């Protein structure tokens, strides 16, 4: 079993919670509450700014030029994500200049801290974040109404370009630990999946300080 598959298998119990999360189901069913939509745009923008820093930091510690290139190729789609989120915010008058919630800060701080533990756990975390995102948005993309205010976000997160970047990242994770994932990689992978679920829940329920 490849390292990427082993990581997914080790967090297999979490996967059904990803695709059945009420936040995603509401998006797919077209009945997402407007307040939740607004919290999502603001929280996702704040998170993606920090995620860009994490990805850049990971690129700077990549062990080979090839690894740096594959990781670096996630920076451009993230720029697009930020632009789509900013455009959506302008169109729907969502204030992005709000203090991020505790879960957003916790998630992004965890990723930044992970960089100090080295490349392997950090690349497992990047893979986890990208895999969860792509699987979640791809699952609901066919059902999502194209005229919904959040359609540009769903379309972007499940795009072919995202799929290509994820495929290259999968190979990179396999090469990072050809004999299988270390305990630190498994922990990082699992924590990111759980942080993602907490992030959606925080948006859904309107978490405050």
């Amino acid at each position, binding site marked *: 079993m490849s390292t990427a598959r082993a990581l997914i298998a080790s967090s297999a119990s979490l996967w059904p919670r990803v695709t059945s999360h009420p936040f995603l189901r509401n998006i797919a069913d077209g009945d997402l509450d407007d307040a939740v939509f607004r919290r999502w745009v603001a929280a996702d923008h704040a998170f993606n700014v920090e995620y860009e820093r994490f990805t850049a930091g990971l*690129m700077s510690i990549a062990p080979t030029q090839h690894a*740096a290139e594959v990781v670096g190729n996630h920076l451009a789609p993230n*720029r697009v994500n930020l632009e789509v989120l900013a455009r959506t915010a302008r169109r729907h008058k969502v204030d992005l200049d709000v203090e991020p919630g505790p879960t957003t800060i916790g998630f992004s701080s965890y990723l930044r801290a992970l960089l100090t533990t080295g490349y392997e756990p950090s690349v497992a975390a990047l893979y986890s974040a990208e895999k969860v995102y792509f699987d979640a948005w791809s699952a609901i993309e066919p059902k999502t109404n194209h005229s919904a205010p959040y359609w540009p976000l769903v379309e972007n997160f499940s795009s072919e370009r995202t799929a290509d970047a994820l495929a290259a990242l999968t190979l990179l994770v396999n090469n990072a630990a050809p004999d299988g994932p270390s305990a630190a990689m498994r922990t990082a992978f699992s924590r990111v999946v759980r942080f993602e679920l907490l992030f959606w829940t925080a948006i859904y329920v309107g978490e405050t300080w």
Partner: protein
Amino acid sequence: MASLSDRLVERGLPGVWAQLAHPTVAGIARGDLDPEIFRSWLEQDYLFLLDYVRVFSRLASHAPDQHLGDLVDLAYATWHDELELHRGLAAEFGADLLGAIKGEPCIAYTEFLLAAAGDYGRGLAGLLPCMWGYSTLGQLLAERPPPDPRYARWVATYADPGFTALARRCAQMVDEAHEWTLLDEPTAIAAFDEAMRLELAFWTVPGPMTEAE
């Protein structure tokens, strides 16, 4: 009152004149540089740029929000535009980009920049001699482009308004970092001067030049 980047650039002008007088640059300007020397420079600069991208990404990892996108764009432009020029010229000069090994000037310069990037302001100031220096050299050489079309293409890349804009943005970021107290002037001068020194040394490429000495 002149900005910090204006003062650094003023300070760095003699360094640019020294680069212009360096046999490698002078040879490019005349268009009669020994292709073996340019081949070696191309290989060294390719290796330099691979680490240069890491310098941008390291800075981006602790950049203020207002600079984050610029640094990601700089990393991306270096990777896709500047390295593309090198790959394009490699075949024409018989350069072995993948098999090349860093010479001492390249090691010294990349190690300095990567270490400097651990401190945001210092790292930015260390970048300026390369960005501003190449932009300035490119514009000077473009006034009378070299007759060899390969060297003319190289000059055109660094004289390009897009590259000038990147260099200007880099200078602006130095000023903003100074304004936001992320960079004090003595630190900026020390990093800038060291990078200018390493920039000049980089033109003396391993192989054809050093073997002749």
